[in-house]
């Protein structure tokens, strides 16, 4: 009964979405105020229907209703509750439904928070969101129905992929999807602007918070995914240039570019056409990433049930959304005229440089990801593009980006004085150079450059802050007052830029990791990375839906015990799969990382790593996302938000 309710709600959402697409867009074209006013209610209605549909699926999953095909295929009655819930979106059908839910949520959010928008713009934005929502909901309904029944129901489910049974991964897809789908809002704004034929500063101010919010989620989602692959896959790495990872990195890169160019639209009414293209491009890349993963034409460790027939449906859908919006762009963009004029050396100029570099990195990653596919198609050649290509092409582009990143925020709008900006940065440059020289003695050149870049970014961001609050120039109290009065937007910039520095330091540190694969018998000791790793014992452990072998390893340094690690190798009988559970001890400076491999002749094969600064990689991403959130709290972006206005001044938030 509940699954049928969900199915019906999904069909209802398609119907409402259709109305949401047609009525407001038509109304905006005719200038009919009443038709435009219908938009918010329809968006809200679609969201409610979608939420009912999604909750029905979660309900079926939680109650282990194995007469529902996706539930039977992806969950198991013995599974912990949290994985029964996450199991509902950890598969193809469920994740598409979740995708639709978030898309309808975006429409509802624009309806709710966009009350101050010009009526025609709001109607068009909601209409465009409705149009893309209908496409995906139809895909869920016609080609990947999550409520398909199975009769007779099997006595038990087939369980979820054990690799996905992990708290980190419970959070990763939702965050990533919210990030991906969140870019639908800037996309809808871009298409609406093309339809209106007008972009002004207000448009830039409206697009930015949505972009920022989506960007924060995407940053968090990518970081979580990378963290998951670090501790769960047990390969000791954090980024593999896997096609699916690249698919998430691409919209992040162009989304970051969009974030910056939208500021120029807002402040200077320049770069309008380019910003519109970035908004369309970012959402297109989010969509294409999903398509490439689902259609099975990319070779990847990320597995979903792949089906070329489904791929054709998604491809047609993408063709309509992406092709349609780009055609509209080609026809309508000439109408948008630029007004702001700026010198090459200015804040605008720095942001253009940022955009050029970020988009170049995106182009390189896109080429590396799709080249093998096209080489196979056109030349019949089998080849793979791996980390060496990406490292060799991305680093040279990232280096000037880092150099410019610290300088950019110090430049004035319109025309800037480079010498004055550099004068504020001299001590950051000194620290970076010192860090680089010290690191060059201990490490290879590339990590040393990485450390120097990290120091440059972190201290460059600090230098910007110090200059803004006139620290040491005015009394401390006055400085703190200035800090409090600083626009949240520029504070967010400082935090996010420093966050990237922390991530780069982590990556550079990680490249110095020491590792060894050893065969130890209980009682034996291995020396890796300056630590003594003593295998105490190997024993059996039972879990709710798995059985495991667990090694106990005592790690000591200079005779002092530092940590006890208990890595496991779990076998899941239902899925007939084995996973390795790495165990990690961290003190933020280094990770002690142990993986239990095969057992042989009474001994155990262990993989032991000392990963320097590894946690900084994700810590940095967290700081970047936090910077985005601080920037979101900027007063300028809240202007016109009724929820805030209603609250009395000074009340606790």
């Amino acid at each position, binding site marked *: 009964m509940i699954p049928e309710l969900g199915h019906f709600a999904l069909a209802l959402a398609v119907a409402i979405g259709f109305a949401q697409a047609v009525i407001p867009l038509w109304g905006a074209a005719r200038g009919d105020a009443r038709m435009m006013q219908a938009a918010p209610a329809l968006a809200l209605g679609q969201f409610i229907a979608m939420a009912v549909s999604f909750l029905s699926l979660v309900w079926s999953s939680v109650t282990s209703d194995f007469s529902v095909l996706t539930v039977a295929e992806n969950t198991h009655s013995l599974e912990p509750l949290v994985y029964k819930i996450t199991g509902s979106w950890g598969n193809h059908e469920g994740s598409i439904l979740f995708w639709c839910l978030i898309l309808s949520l975006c429409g509802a959010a624009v309806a709710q928070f966009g009350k101050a928008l010009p009526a025609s713009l709001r109607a068009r934005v909601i209409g465009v969101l409705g149009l893309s929502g209908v496409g995906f909901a139809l895909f869920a309904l016609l080609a990947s129905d999550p409520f398909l029944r199975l009769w007779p129901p099997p006595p038990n489910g087939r369980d979820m992929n054990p690799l996905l049974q992990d708290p980190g991964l419970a959070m990763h897809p939702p965050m990533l999807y919210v990030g991906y789908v969140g870019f639908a809002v800037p996309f809808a704004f871009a298409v609406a602007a093309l339809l209106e034929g007008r972009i002004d500063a207000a448009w830039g101010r409206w697009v930015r918070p949505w972009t920022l919010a989506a960007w924060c989620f995407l940053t968090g989602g990518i970081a979580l995914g990378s963290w998951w692959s670090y501790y769960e896959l047990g390969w000791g790495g954090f980024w593999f240039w896997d096609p699916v990872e690249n698919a998430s990195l691409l919209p992040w890169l162009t989304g970051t570019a969009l974030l910056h160019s939208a500021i120029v639209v807002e402040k200077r009414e320049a770069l309008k*056409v380019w910003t519109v293209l970035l908004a369309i*491009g970012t959402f297109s890349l989010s969509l294409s990433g999903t398509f490439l993963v689902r259609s099975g034409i990319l070779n990847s460790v990320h597995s979903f049930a792949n089906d*070329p*027939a489904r791929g054709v449906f998604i491809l047609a859908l993408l063709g309509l959304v992406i*092709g349609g919006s*780009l055609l509209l762009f080609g026809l309508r*963009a000439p109408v948008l005229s630029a007004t702001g004029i700026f010198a090459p050396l200015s804040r605008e100029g720095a942001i253009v440089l940022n955009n050029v570099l970020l988009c170049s990195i995106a182009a390189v990653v896109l080429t590396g990801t*799709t080249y093998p596919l096209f080489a196979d*198609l056109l030349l019949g050649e089998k080849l793979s593009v791996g980390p060496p290509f990406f490292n060799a092409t991305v680093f040279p582009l990232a280096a000037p980006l880092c150099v410019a990143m610290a300088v950019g925020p110090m430049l004035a709008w319109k025309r800037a004085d480079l010498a004055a900006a550099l004068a504020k940065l001299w001590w950051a440059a000194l620290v970076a150079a010192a860090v680089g020289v010290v690191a060059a003695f201990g490490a290879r050149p590339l990590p040393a450059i990485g450390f120097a870049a990290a120091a440059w970014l972190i201290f460059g961001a600090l230098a910007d802050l110090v200059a803004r609050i006139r620290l040491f120039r005015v009394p401390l109290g006055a400085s703190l007052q200035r800090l409090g009065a600083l626009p949240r937007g520029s504070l967010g910039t400082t935090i996010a830029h420093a966050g990237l520095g922390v991530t780069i330091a982590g990556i550079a540190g990680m490249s110095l990791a020491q590792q060894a694969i050893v065969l130890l018998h209980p009682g034996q000791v291995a020396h890796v990375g300056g630590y003594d790793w003593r295998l105490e014992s190997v024993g059996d452990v039972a879990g709710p839906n798995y059985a495991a072998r667990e090694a106990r390893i005592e790690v000591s340094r200079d005779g002092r015990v530092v940590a006890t690690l208990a890595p496991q190798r779990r076998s899941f009988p239902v899925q007939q799969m084995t996973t390795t559970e790495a165990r990690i001890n961290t003190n933020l400076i280094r990770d002690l990382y142990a993986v239990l491999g095969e057992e042989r002749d009474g001994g155990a094969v262990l993989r032991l790593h000392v990963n320097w600064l590894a946690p900084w990689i994700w810590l940095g991403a967290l700081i970047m996302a936090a910077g985005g959130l601080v920037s979101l709290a900027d007063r300028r972006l809240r202007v016109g938000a009724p929820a805030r206005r209603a609250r009395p001044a000074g009340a606790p938030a």
Partner: protein
Amino acid sequence: MNRRLLLLVPFGGVLVAGAGFLAMLERAQEGKFDPREVPSMLIGKPVPRFTLPGDPGFASTDLVGRPVLVNWFASWCVPCAEEATVLMDLKRAGVPIWGIAYKDKPADTAKFLARYGSPYARLGRDEPGRVAIDWGVTGVPETYLIDAQGVVRWRFVGPMTPDTVSAELQPILRKYA
């Protein structure tokens, strides 16, 4: 360039990419496009040197003289059981098939062959899986065609079906017979 044309470039690029992806999907449905497939480095090269125990077992030097189909299999592999009927048909058609049991205990192999029938003229055992590494075997079942000079001419990953036999194996067998 004309600004209007320039602004249509993204649309054109997406059209081309979309057409490419459509072609990939169509070929994938026909089974002609598989990005997962890894080509064997052995094609056109002589078989790596090996000697395998078994009854009677065989060595790389024994493969010279006539084309032989070498089939890697294991009793623990479900697709191998699916493939057994196809191999038996090939045997009846007079194709010499030699088998290599991969990471399999002799007793289990014997039970497997008793149950599904043995298509193999000769049987080698690679219990430690060392020879499989030299061959670059990615999994079982996997089938290789070795020509009369002992050169690898064809490889197939996964269970062969009657379609594979008629579409791929027969033409190449005729070529090297």
